[in-house]
């Protein structure tokens, strides 16, 4: 027995060693140009920059900063849903939720120290390699750094208190959840502070015309890109955390020895994917908002982003994000085999696939790409006469709404897959009635607020002529129509016409958000371009209300409904688990690539327009360099986090050793 255990341990160690060797070889292959370059030209610079043993300081910072950001995203993102899962378990009394939340807590507790160490390493590396920049930057943010350090200490204390008090506070769950909420709040403050410092580098404020900082620290923090970056980053962190946990569950599923363990990790993977997609759905709009604000800060930067050096990077980004949606949906569809009764809905999937693929194809259609004369001749002009229109922002806004709708419907079909028939709402079920009315009220509040914004909007505030107000009014009327549809849907739902109510509201939303406003966007683009931002917000808000109201009606209809049987957790294909792994890898690469774009947009400025990088490393790396760097960092991160998870798991009981429900 002992010999068998020893052999198993040795075999596992040999496999891990081999995996490390393969990964190291790949990493070397990805980075070999830099290594060769470093060997050939160890040099020093007199531009306020030092090299790192001959290696490009820029690449060293790139690697350290990106690894720090990835670990930080995990440490900040995972507590959000660890606490959510714990709350769900507390409310429904199912111990598997609590066990899952505890396992998440173990993972981010293991990753926290590495995150902090990488943060320290990043600071030291900046001071060492970029002393002139550090002097300027930390001179401005010195007061913030003390607060930042203090909050990190608070985060450390709360995190370990939250994790280690799990058993002790098992019977005082409210208190423990309170600790978790404090942890989430502190993590969010850290994101706010960290994001303000990085966004300041793109949009410095409080600087006079000689480049001297004359403002207050608050002015520096409250720069124009701060909140857009925070929103984008928080949603990105949630998505990232969800997909990393999903991949963890998938790998554990694939290596599980018992059915109980497979059931547990299958469920974990499902929850991870669910959270990841929930974060992903609003992410394109957060990105759109950030992009518009970047244009506002500097048209030069904005034009360079979408129509200059970085336009191809956005084509790759569209591919990656499109893949996230398609693979996330694929995972849901393939998971339906574990649900008795789901066969009824299989026939719809082929339509979803067609819609998703077509929308992704439209989404990655470029508009502002630098083309050679030969390329222009080949496509018949500066833009393709037919397909060129697909590259416009209004089209992209429409198709991203159309991508979100089938993704949402996949969830709806998934959750009602094993239900036989809905329960009537007209019967005395006060709680469900209230929830539907409350959801309707929330939708009305959101839409009503935005309708009054549109009706009160002054054209002059957007540098538009007074007669352009007609565009605002038309969009406002559509929002009011959506409000009327919401009221009608709530009434129908309360009169036992839940499916009709859902269909009606989805139809109205799809028609308005994708159809009418999608096409109207073309007119607005040419006639009142600055209004396109408000138009996109209207599209998105209308869509979000559909997600809220349709979900509320669905929950009300199917709560307590008879079912064909419980979900057979663990009864999924290996392919679906590889889908989870690929979601994790793709989100890491997407984040790495977007960090390259955000940093690269500053071009040869440490701090845009204020502090110039006059060193020889101040060029914009090509897409080829970017993919090698991001690919290498992805592998290093995955190796590091796998190692941490392995360490974290050494002292933990496996699910098959516990009593699994």
């Amino acid at each position: 027995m002992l010999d068998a255990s020893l052999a198993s341990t040795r075999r596992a160690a040999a496999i891990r060693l081999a995996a490390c060797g393969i990964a190291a070889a790949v990493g070397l292959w990805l980075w070999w140009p830099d290594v060769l370059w470093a060997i050939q030209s160890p040099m020093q610079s007199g531009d306020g920059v030092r090299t790192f043993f001959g290696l490009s300081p820029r690449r060293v910072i790139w690697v350290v900063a990106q690894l720090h950001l990835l670990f930080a995203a995990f440490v900040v993102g995972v507590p959000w849903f660890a606490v959510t899962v714990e709350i769900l378990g507390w409310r429904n009394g199912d111990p598997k939720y609590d066990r899952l939340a505890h396992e998440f807590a173990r993972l981010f507790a293991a990753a926290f120290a590495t995150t902090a160490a990488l943060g320290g390493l990043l600071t030291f590396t900046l001071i060492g390699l970029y002393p002139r920049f550090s002097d300027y930057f930390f001179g401005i943010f010195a007061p913030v750094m003390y607060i930042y350090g203090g909050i990190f200490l608070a985060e450390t204390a709360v995190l370990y208190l939250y994790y280690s008090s799990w058993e002790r506070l098992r019977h005082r769950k409210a208190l423990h959840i309170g600790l978790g909420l404090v942890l989430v709040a502190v993590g969010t403050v850290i994101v706010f502070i960290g994001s303000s410092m990085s966004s300041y580098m793109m949009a410095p404020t409080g600087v006079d015309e000689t480049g001297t900082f004359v403002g207050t620290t608050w002015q520096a923090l409250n720069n124009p890109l701060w909140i857009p970056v925070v929103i984008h980053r928080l949603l990105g962190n949630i998505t990232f955390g969800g997909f990393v946990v999903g991949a963890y569950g998938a790998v554990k599923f694939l290596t599980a020895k018992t059915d109980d363990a497979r059931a547990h990790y299958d469920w974990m993977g499902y929850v991870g994917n669910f959270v990841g997609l929930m974060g992903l759905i609003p992410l394109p709009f957060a990105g759109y908002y950030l992009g518009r604000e970047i244009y506002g800060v500097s048209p030069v930067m904005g034009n360079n982003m979408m129509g200059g050096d970085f336009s191809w990077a956005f084509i790759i980004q569209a591919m990656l994000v499109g893949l996230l949606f398609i693979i996330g949906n694929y995972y849901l569809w393939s998971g339906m085999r574990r649900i008795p009764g789901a066969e009824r809905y299989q026939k719809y999937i082929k339509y979803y696939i067609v819609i998703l693929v077509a929308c992704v194809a439209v989404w990655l259609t470029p508009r502002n790409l630098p083309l050679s004369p030969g390329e222009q001749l080949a496509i018949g002009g500066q833009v393709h006469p037919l397909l060129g229109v697909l590259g416009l922002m209004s089209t992209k806004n429409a198709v991203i709404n159309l991508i979100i709708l089938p993704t949402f419907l996949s969830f709806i079909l998934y959750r009602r897959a094993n239900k036989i028939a809905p329960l009537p709402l007209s019967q005395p079920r006060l709680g469900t009635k209230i929830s539907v009315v409350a959801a309707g009220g929330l939708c009305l509040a959101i839409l009503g607020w935005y309708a009054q914004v549109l009706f009160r909007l002054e054209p002059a505030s957007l540098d538009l002529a007074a007669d352009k107000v007609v565009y605002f009014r038309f969009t406002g009327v559509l929002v009011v129509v959506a409000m009327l549809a919401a009221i009608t849907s709530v009434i129908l739902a309360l009169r036992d016409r839940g499916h009709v109510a859902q269909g009606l509201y989805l139809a109205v939303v799809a028609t308005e958000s994708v159809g009418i406003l999608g096409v109207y966007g073309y007119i607005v683009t040419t006639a009142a371009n600055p209004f396109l931002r408000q138009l996109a917000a209207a599209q998105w808000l209308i869509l979000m209300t559909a997600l809220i109201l349709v979900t509320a009606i669905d929950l009300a209809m199917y709560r307590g409904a008879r079912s064909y049987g419980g979900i057979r957790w663990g009864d999924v294909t290996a392919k679906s688990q590889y889908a989870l792994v690929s979601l994790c890898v793709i989100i890491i690469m997407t984040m790495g690539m977007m960090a390259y774009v955000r940093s690269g947009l500053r071009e040869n400025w440490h701090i845009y327009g204020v502090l110039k990088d006059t060193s020889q490393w101040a060029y914009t790396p090509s897409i080829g360099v970017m993919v090698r760097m991001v690919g290498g960092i992805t592998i290093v991160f995955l190796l590091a986090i796998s190692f941490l998870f392995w360490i974290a798991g050494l002292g933990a009981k496996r699910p098959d050793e516990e009593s699994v429900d």
Partner: protein
Amino acid sequence: MKNPWIRVALFVVALVALFVWAGEVVSRASGSTLRAAPGEGISLENGELIFWGPGKCHTCHAVGTRGRSVRGPNMGASADGDAMMIRAAQRARQRSAELGSDMTATEYLVESLVDPSVHLVTGFKDEMPIVYQPPVHLDPNELTSVVLYLQSLGGQPDSASIAIPREVRLSRRAALAVTPWQPYLEGDSAKGRALFFDPDGRARCAKCHRVGDEGGDIGPELTAVAGTRTTQSIVESLLQPSASIPAGYETELIETIDGRILDGLVLRETADSLWLVTALEEMLSLPLANIARRRTQDTSLMPDDLADYLSVRQLHDLIAYLRTLE
């Protein structure tokens, strides 16, 4: 290959390799590789490299069939019109009529680069950045090279015809610590000295500052200020005295027990009293027992509106004098 760990590892490596391959393909297809950097000095070739590189002109302007940006006018001959230099000659005539003075095609080109909002081409927005300011930040030589390149589009390049406006040269600001600050004018140190010590003058510096044996002791001694401070730092102290206050010269805000609020520099303090000089140069003696609260401030006692009282010439005279104090 039954081991799931190896399968997952290979799957991950394959995904990353696919991403790298796709990026390499895009890199080759887009020509997104390291571009040649412009060299030193003025030349048409440099102008072309700047136009298609660090000048970022190509993100808004195409040249004939090269590039496809449509945010700004096409600089070459295209379906929309003649090449740039021919159009520049036409617009220069139009601008001459508006201004009532002659403007050449090259002057029009220069004006459209350094002050693009002055004359907008119909159908285009007022969104072009001022190219000699950050973030584009071209220096006069780079600007001249770009104009040479534009001259070559439908005309003959002629560097002798290009006059970069003086304000561009003066406004040229390198990033921090790259180019030391220099005064805009050559000041007269003798006049500056007179201004410094004139008790009824506009500056009256000597009321507070000592140079050698002359002057007051309220502010820091300036006998060797040029030996210890850079010119930029001296100018900052003149125009923004609170930006950097020497240790011991921070003012205090004092509230007395009878509710008076006093603001000034504590010159001396004993166990039971302190002596305060206010911004109005009043000297006050206060028993410590009469003080309810006191707080050190981050403002200087020196007035921060010197620029309102001195002309640019007088300011430079004063700077010139202070630079002699080594």
